[in-house]
C-alpha cells in the first residue's frame, strides 16, 4: 500500500514535469537572452529603468539600456537603423521619427507578433490603450498616411506619451475668487488679469522662443480653436481665421506672461511656473512629477489641474514617445515580449507608480495610482480628447515647423503682422509640399 502510494506520487511528479515541459511558459525559450534597448533621457524612461529588474526576474530575459538625450538618441538611431545588423532590439522614438522610420522601412510591422499565439498575450487588452496615442505614435499608412484608418497598420506602441493639461495656482485663484477657465476666452481673460491682481506675476507661462518652441505653443492653440495646418488636399490653411486666432492667443499669452516670456523655451516656461512667477501653465502632463518635488518646486501642493480649455472643440496635444522593434534587430521576438510586458496592464501600472506616464485608460482610473498621484484621474479625462492630428507627421514637417516657429517668433518680438506672417508661412509651406510631391495627384 505504502509502496503503491509512493509509486503514484512518483508518477504524478514525473507527469507534472513532462506536462510542465510541454506547456512551457512563453518566456522560457528566451531565458538568458540579453536585449539592448535605446531609451531617451526622460522622466518616464527613468521610471522604466526602475521596473526593468522586475521584468528580468519574471522572464529571465536581461535588458541592457542605452539611455541618451533625445536629440542624440535620434541621431544614433538614424545611424543604427541604416545598418545591416543593428545593435538595438527595441527603441523608443519620438512621434516624428515614426514618419521617417516607417517610410525608410526600418521598423517592424507588429502584426506578425500579435498574430503569433506563442508570443501574443491574450489578456493584453489593446482596446484599453489610449486611442489618440496609438493613432498618433503607433499607426502609419492610414488616413493622411500617418494616422489610423483602413489601410493603416501598427508599427509601435505608445510609451511615455503625453498630452496637454492646464495647471493653475489654487491659492491665487482662491485669493481673487477666480474660476478655473473652461474656454479659451476665459483663459486669455484670466491670463491678462493676473498681472494686474498680482503685480510681478505673469498670467500663463508658455514656450515662445524661436523655432520649435513657438511653433509648438501655436499648434497647441490651433487645434482647440478649430484650425489645422493643412486641409484634406494638403493645401496649407494655417493662415485662415482660426490660424490668426491661435497666433493672437499666443501673442496675448506672451504679452501677459512673465518678464522675458518671448525668449522662453520649455525649460524656462516650466521654471517660471515652478518658481511661482506665473499663475498658469498649459503644456505637457509630464511635468506633474516635478511640480510635486520640493527640491525643484516652490509651488508644491498649490497646483490644481484642469482640462485643456475648449475653443470650438476640445483637443489636447499628443506627443512623447513610442516603442518599436527595428527591422535590423537581433532578438525581435524577445524584444516583442519586453514591449508587450512594458505596455501590459501590469507593466503600465508599475511604471505609473514609479513616476512614469501611463498609456492605458485603466491605469489612469486605478485606485492605487490615484492614491499616489491624485491628478491622474483628470489626466485620464484629458486623454479622451487627445487629438492625434494636432500637427501633421510627415517627413517634410521639420522644415515647415522651423519656418512656422521662426516666423511666429518675429510676430512675438518684432511686431510682425499676424496675418502677413502666416500668409508667408502658408506660401513657403506650399512650395515645400509641392517639391515633396504632395500635389502630384491634384495637378
Amino acid at each position: 500500500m505504502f509502496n503503491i502510494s509512493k509509486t503514484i506520487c512518483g508518477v504524478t511528479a514525473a507527469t507534472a514535469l513532462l506536462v510542465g515541459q510541454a506547456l512551457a511558459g512563453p518566456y522560457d525559450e528566451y531565458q538568458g537572452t540579453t536585449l539592448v534597448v535605446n531609451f531617451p533621457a526622460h522622466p518616464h524612461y527613468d521610471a522604466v529603468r526602475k521596473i526593468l529588474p522586475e521584468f528580468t526576474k519574471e522572464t529571465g530575459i536581461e535588458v541592457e539600456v542605452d539611455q541618451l538625450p533625445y536629440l542624440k538618441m535620434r541621431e544614433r538611431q538614424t545611424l543604427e537603423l541604416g545598418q545591416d545588423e543593428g545593435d538595438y532590439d527595441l527603441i523608443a522614438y519620438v512621434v516624428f521619427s515614426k514618419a521617417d522610420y516607417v517610410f525608410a522601412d526600418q521598423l517592424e510591422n507588429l502584426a506578425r507578433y500579435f498574430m503569433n499565439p506563442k508570443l501574443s498575450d491574450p489578456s493584453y487588452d489593446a482596446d484599453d490603450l489610449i486611442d489618440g496615442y496609438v493613432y498618433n505614435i503607433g499607426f502609419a499608412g492610414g488616413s493622411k498616411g500617418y494616422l489610423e484608418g483602413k489601410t493603416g497598420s501598427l508599427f509601435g506602441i505608445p510609451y511615455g506619451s503625453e498630452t496637454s493639461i492646464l495647471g493653475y495656482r489654487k491659492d491665487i485663484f482662491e485669493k481673487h475668487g477666480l474660476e478655473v477657465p473652461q474656454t479659451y476666452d476665459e483663459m486669455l481673460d484670466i491670463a491678462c488679469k493676473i498681472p494686474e491682481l498680482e503685480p510681478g506675476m505673469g498670467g500663463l507661462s508658455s514656450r515662445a522662443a524661436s523655432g520649435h518652441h513657438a511653433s509648438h505653443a501655436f499648434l497647441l492653440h490651433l487645434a482647440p480653436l478649430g484650425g489645422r495646418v493643412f486641409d484634406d488636399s494638403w493645401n496649407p490653411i494655417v493662415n485662415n481665421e482660426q490660424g490668426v486666432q491661435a497666433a493672437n492667443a499666443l501673442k496675448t499669452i506672451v504679452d501677459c506672461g512673465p518678464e522675458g516670456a518671448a525668449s522662453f523655451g520649455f525649460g524656462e516656461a516650466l521654471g517660471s511656473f515652478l518658481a511661482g512667477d506665473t499663475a498658469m501653465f498649459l503644456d505637457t502632463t509630464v511635468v506633474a512629477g516635478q511640480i510635486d518635488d520640493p527640491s525643484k518646486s516652490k509651488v508644491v501642493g498649490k497646483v490644481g489641474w484642469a482640462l485643456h480649455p475648449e475653443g470650438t472643440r476640445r483637443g489636447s496635444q499628443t506627443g512623447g514617445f513610442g516603442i518599436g522593434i527595428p527591422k535590423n534587430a537581433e532578438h525581435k521576438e524577445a524584444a516583442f515580449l519586453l514591449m508587450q510586458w512594458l505596455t501590459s496592464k501590469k507593466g503600465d501600472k508599475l511604471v505609473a507608480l514609479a513616476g512614469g506616464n501611463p498609456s492605458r485608460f485603466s491605469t489612469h482610473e486605478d485606485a492605487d495610482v490615484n492614491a499616489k498621484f491624485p491628478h491622474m484621474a483628470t489626466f485620464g479625462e484629458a486623454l479622451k480628447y487627445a487629438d492625434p492630428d494636432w500637427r501633421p507627421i510627415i517627413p517634410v514637417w521639420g522644415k515647415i515647423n522651423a519656418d512656422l516657429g521662426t516666423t511666429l517668433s518675429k510676430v512675438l518680438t518684432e511686431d510682425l503682422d499676424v496675418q502677413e506672417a502666416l500668409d508667408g508661412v502658408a506660401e513657403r509651406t506650399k512650395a515645400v509640399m509641392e517639391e515633396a510631391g504632395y500635389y502630384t495627384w491634384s495637378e
Partner: protein
Amino acid sequence: MSTSTSFNRLTPYVFLAPAVIIMALALLYPLGYMMYGSFREWDPSQAMGESTFVGLKNYITLWNDPNFRESTLVTLKFAVSVVTVEMFIGVGLALMLDRNLRGMSLLRTLFILPMMIAPVVVGLIWRYMYHPTLGIFNRGLKGVGLESVDWLGQHALLSVIIADIWQWTPFIFILALAALQSLPRSALEASRIDGATGWQQIIHIKLPLMMPVLIVTCLLRLIDAFKVLEVILVMTEGGPGLSTEILALRISRTATEFRELGVAAAMSNYLLMLLLFITVLMLIYNRIMEHRAAKANRMIEEAH
C-alpha cells in the same frame, strides 16, 4: 648607376608618402565626400548611394532662399563685430600688461581662463546671467533703479556678441603678448634714445612689427567666428526670429531638423568658399604690406 640616381631622386617622396597618404585620407576624403553630397538629394535614413543626383539644385535653392541669406548676413555681422572688438581689447590688454609687475603670471592665467571653458558651459552661464528675472544683469540693473533689459529677446545678437568677446578676447591677448615679447629690444631702445614717447613707440614700432602675427591671429579668429555653434545654440537657438541664426547653426538644423543632408553640405561649401575668399584676401594684403616694407627698406639703404 642610373637606378641609384633615380632612387635617390625618389627618396624624398618616399619619406613624404605616409604624410601625404594620411592627409589624403583624413582631409581630402571627407572634403570630397561633402562636395559629392552637396550635389545630391540625400536623407539621413539613406546611404549615400541611394540618394539621387540633382546637379546644382541645392546651390541654386540656397541662393534664392531668403532665410539662408539672412543667416549669412547675421554670420557676417557677428564675425566682423566680435573680431574687431576682440582685436582692440586683446591687443590693448597685451600692450598694457607687457611689463614686469608682481603677480603677472597669475594675472595672465586668470585672463585666459574663459577660453578654457567648454562652449556649452559658456552658453549656459551666459544664458542664466541674461535671464530676464533671475539673471545677474537684470537684477543688477533693478538694484540700481534702472529698467531691466530684454537681453535674449530684443538684443539677442548683441548679447551673443558680448558672450563671444568675453570668451575669445584672451586668445588674441596671449598671442599678441607673445608677439610683443619677441620684438627686438634693440629697436625699442633705439627709439627711446631718439626720444619716442610711449604712444609713438606703440604706433610706429610695436604695432608694425607685430602685424604679421596679428594678421594670422585675426584670420584664425575670423575663421572660428564664422563657425561658432554651441554657445549660440545654447543661448538663443538662433532666435528670436532668425536674428542670431548663424550659418553653422543653420547647417546643423538643416541636417538634423530638416533632414536635408545635401542642402546642408551645399551650405557648408558656401561657407568654405566665403572663408577661403577672406583668407586669400588677408594673405594678399599681408603680401602687399611686406612688399611695401621691403621697398621702403631698399629706399633707405639706397639713400645711405
